[in-house]
């Protein structure tokens, strides 16, 4: 089963907490904005992506698949 990470950028406020949970998938760029590095991460990253969605202070991250 493939994993798809969706960030609602209308909701995202660049808190960057997801970066600590899943640094392979999320990054804060030089300008302080959130970037999704891998939109369809490997299944082995499911737990850390779920953690990232949990710790988003504005619940901007959803996981499909």
């Amino acid at each position, binding site marked *: 089963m493939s994993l798809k990470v969706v960030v609602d950028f209308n909701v995202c406020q660049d*808190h*960057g*907490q997801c970066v*600590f949970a899943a640094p392979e998938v999320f990054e804060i760029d030089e300008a302080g904005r959130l970037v999704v590095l891998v939109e369809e991460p490997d299944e082995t990253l499911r737990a850390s992506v*779920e953690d990232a969605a949990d710790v988003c202070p504005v*619940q901007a991250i959803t996981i499909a698949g």
Partner: protein
Amino acid sequence: MTSQRALVVGAGLGGLRTAEALRTGGFTGEVLVVGDEDWAPYNRPPLSKEALAGELAHDKLAFRVRSNAADVVWRHGVRVDHADLDGRAVTLADGERLTYDVLVAATGVSARRLPIPGPPATAAGGRHVIRMLDDAIGLRAALVPGAKVVVLGAGFIGCEVAATARKLGCEVHSVAIDAYPMVRPLGVDLASELQRRHEAQGVVFHLGVGVSEFVGDEHVTGVVLSDGTRLDADVVLEALGSRCNVEWLEGNGLDLTDGVLTDTALRPLRDGVPVDGVAAVGDVVRFPNRRFDDRAWRVEHWNIPTDSGRRAGAVLSAWLAADGYDEVTTADWTLLPAFWSDQYDTRLQSYGMPGLADADGIRVLEGSLDDECVVGYHRGDDLVGVVGVGMLRVVNGYRDRVGRGLVGP
């Protein structure tokens, strides 16, 4: 074999994360969550910030529930009156009795009110608190342009509401017994800078004073301060901290002096001995966090319900399965408190426990106070907290260095 039941009392973030973590831990019995609010778990911090300024809708604030917790049973609008830990049962307000195999205390805190008589302590009486969605809806309706708003308490929530009310065009007075807003966690230098930013936006502070009287009969019309100042008021917000929702646990021999005292496995202590099969999580748990020291702390930061809920779910599922329990309970578990605050264009991001710093241990590490900066909070040589004013990437870079008291780097 009869199915086992995990009963979670409290349907906020801590209850949700514990329910999910019971499933992650392999528990396949019934997970039943009862909560006294009518709402499914939702995010509270926006209630004093962007949601209060914009749209206060439950569906915008509701937490995503992990797919592994889709079969959790929720009963909303149900209050637990009493728990009998020896009998492994709770009694609901309507007299119904629910038995359990494991119990989670996730009942959180309530907004504290001043014990001063006056108009009804309700939204209709103009006397507001802000803790729950319904509180915020009541307050929002009163924050009309030109309304005279008196905010009692200048902690984070009071200051966030003051900022939001200014944004909505209200007149705002902020009253606090402290010498500066948010000074207890942040220290004088940053607190006075934040006061300056609020004043630049038109907030009027009355500091070092208390409240002696509420004026008005059916609806508040003013507040009299302890120095005799009388402030007109259409809206009063009591943002004076919290009291723990622990009454339902009384009579079980637990230490409930400030929340529920537990060990590092989040098991409540009875005469110093942990009660197996019971855990406390979220705002209501007071637990030793060896990332800082051996003392037990209760911390109302945003990540505590999630981190403590995961811990409780792992401990309780191991107990229920009678598998790996000693291993999980004795593991060195710690967490790093974190929260943020938005006031005007200022975003504060905190990691650790800045309030533990020595009075002379607070230093600007990066940037400058009157712009963006990172402030470090030290106890002796230990960095016990960092607060970023803006500078997100920079403050995030300090995060992992915070608080390594008894657990090493």
